[in-house]
């Protein structure tokens, strides 16, 4: 491989690797705070890209309907769970939050969409809606399962994935789409073409990473999340509501997934079921990072991006096989290094 090819591959690998890094970090946040190995992260990516496409075409995106369905389920399940202590105020609050927000989005989007308002409106709107979807999932599934074992939570994550996959097909349809690039502009450095598009992706990822680092180091909510991650019982004893930290973790996963979808939309054709395999790359990076370390996860994700672009250069049809088999030795090493850490029964 000559130097020019190497840089070409490195450039492509860096862009995809950066997106995998975002998804990997989101997986680690969710696992650390809620103990859920959330494998359905990719649905947020695909649904965000498909929502943005619909906005670009001036259509009403299917996610509004999906949010409504999830809102109804969330409302019903919260009312059923809290049936022993239903005061008027509480019922109204549940209705306003769990049902009110999806209805508000449904109405607002129907009003806004036909005027094709442009990315400064549609991107934040897309991220907001996917974030609400993520919180609804937490409320419906993972909050009631808060005390379940890691294994049960993992199986539940697959349950969520199945539901989202089927609903995604219904609400987004079977067609694949590609979003418009942010810009077509490019410049040359030392004979290599650098696309502004790639730089925007990298810059977004770097800014997000810095924001996340600040959030966990300085912000009150971020510290609460860290406390809950280290010791759930201890955190709840000092007044940190673990439902709230779980909700925040899922909201972050939703937002990060949506932003990844916005970034990946122009690069690849996205179908309703494309997300799963993209999300699993983030999961692989997170496992390579031991499901605890953010820097290792980022490093692993970048390595994964480069590995994939190198593998596709040699037209290897076995790249997925290799990517996923990569985590087996890491799991083995962790099992031996801390034999009793993962002991919990289904």
């Amino acid at each position, binding site marked *: 491989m000559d130097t020019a090819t190497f840089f070409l591959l490195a450039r492509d690998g860096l862009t995809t690797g950066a997106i995998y890094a975002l998804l990997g970090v989101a997986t680690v946040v969710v696992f650390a705070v809620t103990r859920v190995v959330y*494998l359905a992260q990719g649905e947020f990516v695909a649904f965000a890209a498909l929502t943005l496409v619909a906005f670009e075409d001036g259509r009403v995106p299917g996610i509004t309907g999906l949010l409504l369905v999830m809102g109804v389920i969330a409302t019903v399940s919260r009312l059923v769970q809290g049936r022993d202590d239903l005061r008027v105020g509480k019922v109204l609050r549940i209705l306003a939050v769990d049902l009110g927000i999806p209805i508000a989005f449904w109405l607002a989007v129907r009003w806004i969409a036909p005027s094709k308002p442009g990315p400064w409106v549609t991107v934040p709107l897309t991220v907001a809606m996917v974030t609400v979807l993520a919180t609804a999932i937490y409320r419906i599934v993972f909050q009631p399962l808060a005390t379940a074992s890691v294994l049960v939570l993992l*199986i539940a994550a697959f349950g969520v994935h*199945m539901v989202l996959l089927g609903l995604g097909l219904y609400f987004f349809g079977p067609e694949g789409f590609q979003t418009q690039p942010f810009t077509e502009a490019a410049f040359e450095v030392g004979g290599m073409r650098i696309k502004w598009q790639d730089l925007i992706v990298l810059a977004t990822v770097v800014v997000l990473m810095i924001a996340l680092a600040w959030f966990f180091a300085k912000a009150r909510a971020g510290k609460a999340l860290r406390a809950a991650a280290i010791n759930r019982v201890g955190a709840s004893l000092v007044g940190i509501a673990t439902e709230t930290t779980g909700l925040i973790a899922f909201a972050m996963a939703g937002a990060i997934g949506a932003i990844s979808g916005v970034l990946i939309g122009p690069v690849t054709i996205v179908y309703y079921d494309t997300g799963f395999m993209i999300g*699993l790359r983030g999961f692989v990076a997170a496992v390579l990072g031991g499901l605890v370390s953010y820097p290792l996860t980022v490093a692993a994700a970048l390595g994964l991006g480069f590995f994939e672009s190198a593998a596709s250069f040699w037209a290897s049809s076995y790249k997925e096989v290799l990517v996923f088999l990569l985590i087996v030795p890491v799991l083995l090493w962790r*099992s031996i290094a801390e034999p009793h850490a993962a*002991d919990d029964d*289904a």
Partner: protein
Amino acid sequence: MRPTTTRDAMSPRPLALVVLAATAVLPWLPVPEYVVTIADMAGIAALVALGLVMLTGIGGMTSFAQAVFVGFGAYTTAVLTTTWGWSPWATLLPSLVVTALGALVIGLVTVRLSGHYLALGTVAWAVAFSYLFGSLPLLGQHTGLSAIPPIALAGVPLIDPRRFYGLVWIAVVGSTVLTLHLLDSRVGRAIRALRGNGDAAASFGVDAAKARLWLFVYAALLAGLAGWLLAHFQRSVSPSMFDIHAGVEYLLMAVLGGTGQVFGALVGALIVVILREQLQIWLPLVLGQSGNFEIVVFGTILLAVLVGARDGLWPLIARWLPARPPRRIDRTLAMSRAAMPARDTLLLEADGLVRRFGGLIAVNGVSLALRAGTTTGLIGPNGAGKSTTFNLLTGTLARSAGTVRVLAKKIADLTPQTAARLRISRTFQHVKLVGSMSVLDNVAIGAHLRGKRGPFSAMLRLDRVEERTLLAEAARQIERVGLGEFIDRRADSLSLGQLRLVEIARALALDPILMLLDEPAAGLRFHEKAALATLLRQLNGDGMTVLIVEHDMDFVMNLVDRLVVLDFGAAIAEGLPHEIRRDAAVQAAYLGVAA
């Protein structure tokens, strides 16, 4: 409320016969063909789910990769029949061999993974192999292989689902019977004791790693058999039939039926297959578009079971079945006992035991000498290193330094299994019994090393004489600790004090020369303690050596011949009980007074 008797092995015979008869005559009944087709597919799926129940519910290993092994079986026969022109019957054995070898290689790595890492590992296998199936030109890549010939029986090709039915359900009923036989045996008890971390099973000589690998291959073989049937039923194979979504669907069947239940696999497979076929017809009509919408229902059912009914459906069905009659114990059968060492021989000699946990030294140079036929007490304040010393002597923990001699022979590699083979048995401070198993089965695990019969003789019921002898021995030890009336109760229905006695019975079932008892009297009532003391004295009389950790000083002082006092990981005093009582260092350690 939990049922107090075990109902998880086999349902009463009359009912089973009615169900069996109904199953047998189905293809001759005037039912539409699609009903028989569904029954065929349910049978094939039930084989996979049965393996998964064994692996997940009984062995404690959750796998998302079971569809991969269906793929091994299906692709092997598909390639051999289409590319090489073999007859379908000739490919049955190769299909199973390929599956077994694949499972052996994958299992060697996978069964070493602990807890949820194992499940995540199977996710990786499932994704990697579905891509591999889709990439290999030999396997027809993404389109798969088609025009697979049907299985022929006496010259008649089994194309009609009514004709195929017999083959499928003979496989299902046969596998179910073999599996039930396996569970109801020495090996079955060992497999059922693997859940959790398997420490207790290992302490009675069960080779946990080997048992887990064996179980992994067994579950894969059931899947491989299903794959062989599936390939000749569908007459085509493609990668999507064996991907992770298929793996999750098989897991759904196991979870829905009840992961710990053999019959749950049948119930789960039947429900999921019927639902899938019906929903594929109705949902597109209702929704006005075609697509894979049944997965929404499956995902919802999976979540509903996890949130609302973690034990699945079988316990709800089992509630209507009459309880299993208590097991008959043949009291005439007795087990031969090995000789006890002569009284006062030096039985166990530990010298300079050290155990470090990172920077912490939990045990720092403890030496002990136990003579045959005596009882030694190991006492000391909390955190003194008593349980760690126990774990070092039984091989549960590896020692950082020091030597252990048993009957003057130096034991270099002391693992729980070697300790059990040296006839050293133990109880645990935190009771380690299998809650879903009966007291009898739990105690019979103690006699694991006194039996020899393996899985194959268990499946073919060639182990019955040995099995009855083992159970008679277990029953004898249960009566010895005074729990005769609880013999058929589930272990998790007993009180903590009773569970400690069950652990002692299990330790006795090993036919030990040395018993290490970790706080056996904690949680016992006054008269139970008195009975325990009588039992232990009686054991001493028979030549048994006992090392005991206990906080109840009256109990210890009246029982033991010698005492060793630990503090901060080191022995601070050793001697006769009345000497220890007067020892200044001991008083300082317990009461904190300056000597």
